[in-house]
């Protein structure tokens, strides 16, 4: 009787496994077109970049089909054109450092501002939530370039902020906000904050607010409720939002170009320079791949630490 039972269970389980495998196969088939597009559009150019990064720079741009590791060398080191002495490429290091620093700060500021916004929207009555979400997405309607110039108009020396402050008599001299790291930070935060708000909102919307009540009931203060109940439960949204803000910030081009005024370069500008005025395509390709590695490394560290923290609650 009992053995029969077990064998029945086993055959049932194997049926379940088969059904699951069938489903996986069917899903794979359905996603084939998307996979083909992704492969051609992402892997193709990447492959070209990889090959280019090991070639010699052409005299007027382009590449000479001659194997060389010079581009990879130049990513980190600088060779003096006269006496061939080698030193660390300070310019590159400082640009990479600025990019990472500004992207990190952008993510942080976007989180600090975006989290309360997402909370606000999620706690509105359902019929008004879509209106608030709509307002959040309005900036996407306008071209990034135009929005960035709008910020420039606001913060430049004769811009809106300075004019108002001077008229009100708060300051005598205009504040130098344009062409600083702060300007880039402001611009990037403005551009990418919806990418932080939307995933956090999606998590927050699924949050059972009765859990918040339960925590209040169990003597948790507002901050404790936030730290011990709300944040852990919306963490998937925070992780997603941080990734969505950090990665494009790291590769940002338009914002640092306009608001940094060419003085405060980020990786994106540096890469563009190599393909343009610099006429050093291999270096541009090597820098792009370096950026890719940095992004992947940061992602892996972040996701792993987020997972570890998540599973830590279980044991």
């Amino acid at each position: 009787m009992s053995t029969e039972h077990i064998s029945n269970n086993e055959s049932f389980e194997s049926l379940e496994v088969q059904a699951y495998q069938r489903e996986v196969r069917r899903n794979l088939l359905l996603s084939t077109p998307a996979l083909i597009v992704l492969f051609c559009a992402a892997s193709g150019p990447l492959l070209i970049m990889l090959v280019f990064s090991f070639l010699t720079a052409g005299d007027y741009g382009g590449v000479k089909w001659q194997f060389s590791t010079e581009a990879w060398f130049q990513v980190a080191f600088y060779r003096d054109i006269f006496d061939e002495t080698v030193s660390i490429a300070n310019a590159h290091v400082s640009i990479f450092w600025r990019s990472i620093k500004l992207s990190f700060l952008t993510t942080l500021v976007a989180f600090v501002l975006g989290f309360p916004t997402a909370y606000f929207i999620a706690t509105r009555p359902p019929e008004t939530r879509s209106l608030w979400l709509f307002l959040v997405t309005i900036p996407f309607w306008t071209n990034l370039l135009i929005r960035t110039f709008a910020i420039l108009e606001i913060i430049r020396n004769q811009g809106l902020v300075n004019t108002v402050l001077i008229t009100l008599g708060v300051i005598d001299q205009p504040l130098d906000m344009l062409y600083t790291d702060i300007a880039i930070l402001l611009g990037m935060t403005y551009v990418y904050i919806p990418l932080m708000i939307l995933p956090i909102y999606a998590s927050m919307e699924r949050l059972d607010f009765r859990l918040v009540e339960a925590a209040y009931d169990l003597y948790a203060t507002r901050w404790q409720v936030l730290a011990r109940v709300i944040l852990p439960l919306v963490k998937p949204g925070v992780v997603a939002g941080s990734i969505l803000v950090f990665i494009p910030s790291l590769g940002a081009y338009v914002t640092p170009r306009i608001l940094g005024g060419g003085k405060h370069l980020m990786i994106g500008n540096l890469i563009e320079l190599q393909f343009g005025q610099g006429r050093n395509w291999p270096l541009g390709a090597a820098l792009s791949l370096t950026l890719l590695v940095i992004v992947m490394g940061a992602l892996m560290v972040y996701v792993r630490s987020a997972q570890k923290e998540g599973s830590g609650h279980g044991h």
Partner: protein
Amino acid sequence: MSITVAVDVRSVSKIFGAGTGQEVTALDDVSVSIAQNEFFTLLGPSGCGKTTLLRLIAGFEHATHGSILLEGAEISALPPFQRPVNTVFQNYALFPHMSVSQNIGFGLEMQGRTKDEVADTVGAMLSLVKMENLKDRQIDQISGGQQQRVALARALAPRPKVLLLDEPLSALDLKLRKEMQVELKRLQHETGITFIFVTHDQEEALTMSDRVAVMNEGRILQVGAPHEIYNRPNDRFVADFIGDTNFISAEIIERDENEIRMRLPSGIEIMIPAPPDLPQSGEITLAIRPEQARIASDGDAVSIQGSLTDEIYIGTDTQYYIDIGTTSPFVVRVQNANGETQRIPPGTSVGISVDAKTIQILRD
């Protein structure tokens, strides 16, 4: 000064949407005193205001008028986390990102107890609700009944002065619900904490409570021990909501100090002990429980005459539906003692015999 009052609700009203033009009165001038160590139940249909009253005591809502005292101290203005009151929620509201032990220890941790204290109390609570084996499980890895136990342990762990229970058994199946009813009574005895229990299930209310408050449309209609509520309902709604009741209108013929004589629709006149504050004449409503009426046999005094329309066997009892000329039939319930039932063919003319002492006169 024999019984101390745990919770004193004084003339509390709660109006939702005040000032919006769409005002909903959830509680209308409610006053009730709940004694210490009492198992007190708020019973009523959904929307009667029982959950609102519970949420006012917990601090999730604030009263529009009136005040709430906990052991003599005004708590109306305190936020939930400053009230020594804990709630067992209808859906349990357990933290899904914490283990069973972490859930139970949450309140203690928030109170700032030391790690050892938390561990000791959590251990004691786990054994109180018999969940020691599952202490490291995640919430989604345990059954509904087990979640219920964790929710109870979590709310009891900080030793609140009052435990509020918001229909905690409604999500469980019948058998588990019966077990938990016994379990809850046991927990209340062992911990000595005042329980305020909200339910719409009259049977649950009658079996578990020391006292029951029957609510409807934002008001408390009657407060009393289960047998008082059942045997002496003072209101038509109470009589109707709790158990089955036959309502018969009658006409007062005359009354004196102790007794009242009235005429039933059948024309039969009966005398019953007169409650005070009853008019000298006019129409009144009588309530008669099905099990307190009998099918008259030879020699019984017949109170009401009618003809049998239906006979329904329900296991322990048999119910007889008798047409007595009113809109709904009169129901008589007879216990099936010794497995025998009295079989009466439909259409038979039968007499119904009622002990005058069991008849309730209702205010309308």
